[in-house]
């Protein structure tokens, strides 16, 4: 897989990862990011994914991935077993985000967390003008079938860091287009104009 085939948000995450490091992918899906990192940055990868079909796709690619619930499976790894624990586009679906973040900070030196920004202007406008739960490209579900049980904005995550006790080492607010293949950084009022946020976090 070439870098330009990787989703834009994953490209940003990939650019933050040091070569030869040990990576844990929490909710790694079909393993696109792990596969790219293994090929291009020679990382040692482990992934956790709950859906059988996606796990099979990962293992077919030669990735080390196990099927299970990220909240439970993350528990078994020794302390600091990894350089990075990556939770890409999954935090908004986790029942207890603080405990998952604690586990990430236990098993890895650093963490990467990304999620769709609920503070985006389209979301705000929809709620304000239609009076109904927003449905956008980034948050495509209706209120009754959404897996996104934790709706948060970039600002929420910043505040969350001081509450839960981790440091934000890097942040990227992005807007994607062309089926997430391309995108750009959002520097002006990110909490209003970015569709996704990506954070590199470390221990306090």
């Amino acid at each position, binding site marked *: 897989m070439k870098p330009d085939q990787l989703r834009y948000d994953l490209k940003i995450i990939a650019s933050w990862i040091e070569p030869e490091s040990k990576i844990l992918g929490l909710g790694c899906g079909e393993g696109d990011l792990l596969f790219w990192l293994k090929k291009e940055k020679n990382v040692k990868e*482990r992934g956790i994914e709950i859906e*059988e079909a996606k*796990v*099979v796709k*990962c*293992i*077919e*690619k*030669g*990735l*080390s*991935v*196990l*099927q*299970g619930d990220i909240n439970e*499976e993350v528990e*078994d*790894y*020794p302390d600091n*077993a990894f350089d990075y624990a990556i939770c890409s586009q999954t935090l908004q679906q986790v029942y207890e985000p603080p405990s998952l973040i604690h586990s990430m900070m236990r098993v890895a030196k650093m963490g990467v967390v990304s999620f769709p920004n609920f503070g985006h202007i389209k979301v705000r406008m929809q709620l304000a003008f239609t009076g109904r739960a927003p449905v956008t490209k980034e948050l495509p579900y209706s209120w009754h079938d959404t897996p996104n049980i934790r709706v948060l904005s970039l600002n929420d995550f910043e505040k969350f860091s001081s509450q839960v006790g981790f440091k934000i080492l890097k942040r990227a607010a992005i807007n994607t287009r062309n089926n997430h293949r391309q995108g750009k950084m959002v520097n002006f009022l990110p909490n209003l104009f970015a569709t996704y946020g990506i954070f590199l976090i470390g221990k306090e």
Partner: protein
Amino acid sequence: MSEYIDQDQTGASVGIVEKQFFTFAAPPGRLKLEGGASIGPLTIAYETCGTLNKDKNNVILVLHALSGDSHMAGYYDPKDTKPGWWDIMVGPGKGIDTDKYFVICSNIIGSCSGSTGPASINPETSKTYGTHFPLITIGDMVETQKALIDHLEIKSLLSMIGGSIGGMQVLEWCVRYPDMVKSAIPLATTTQHSALAIAFNEVARQAIMADPNWNDGHYYSGKKPDMGLTIARMIGHITYLSDESMRLKFGRKLQNRSALSFEFGAEFQVESYLQHQGNKFIERFDANSFLYITKAADYFDLARQYGSGSLVKAFSKCKSKFLVVSYTSDWLYPTYQSKEMVKAMKKNNLDVSFCEIDAQWGHDAFLLPSDRLDNLIKGFLRSASHET
């Protein structure tokens, strides 16, 4: 495991294979068994498919389950109606690709398909061993396989794969010879039998030993305990299926009749199926071998033997990369048992992949055609061979 010998739908086959024999441990160099007894000489039947490469680093060892044998794939003779027991998995372009790998399968000690077992002649008495054959363990099976691998002058195994009791041998190998096993695939297996599994085995053994023809295991010159072995096999088959697979396959359908006939014949299809499986089994399997191998499986307990009760400790010397596979409807070796071994491997920082395949066919699912399993194994073996 059941017999699901089927020709591969694609027609791909390793072709003609030959059963070979390796004899070793001739006195005084007898093999010391875990139970304390020594035995020798021993013969191990084995078959190979594919070609050993120059560096001898493309070797895969296939380990068979309770009733299997060394005949994993291909045919002995062009006239054979059925190929080896895992022909759907082992062959050119298949899950275990014989164009790439050199694949070895040997018949386990205590079995009856060419390797030394209770039906063999005891050289000391010139009579069949019968129950004078010493009790064996999964570890003893592995020791004889190790002797074969040494004899073939192979120093390390790219991978090994086995389901059920074959999976126990995989795990034992990884713990016993951590430097020799680069990667391993335990399928539908466990690190220790549950009370439920031991219970079914015990009922099956009692059925054999209650057969008057069993004669304390010394029946080779007379009538064999066919009835006992038939029942043992029927019991086994129930545990290899699942409620769902039996419901779908048989339901309450009747066999060759439209109404109940109020007699004790095989009226329901499920009865007829089990009897058929039992009757087929006695033609090819030895009742004493059934006793010895099920006992070895019941004794198997990785945590007790290698970790003073701790599975994490038991895996602490392991170095292999693992792919663990379980099946949703396997109630003989349920997924929680696979998850326990995965957990212990993770705690040792081992490289482990795990997949629970959704299948309705119970424990036997690992023997049935499945693109999913083929693809898992292909991908895993490819990455294992890149890493060596």
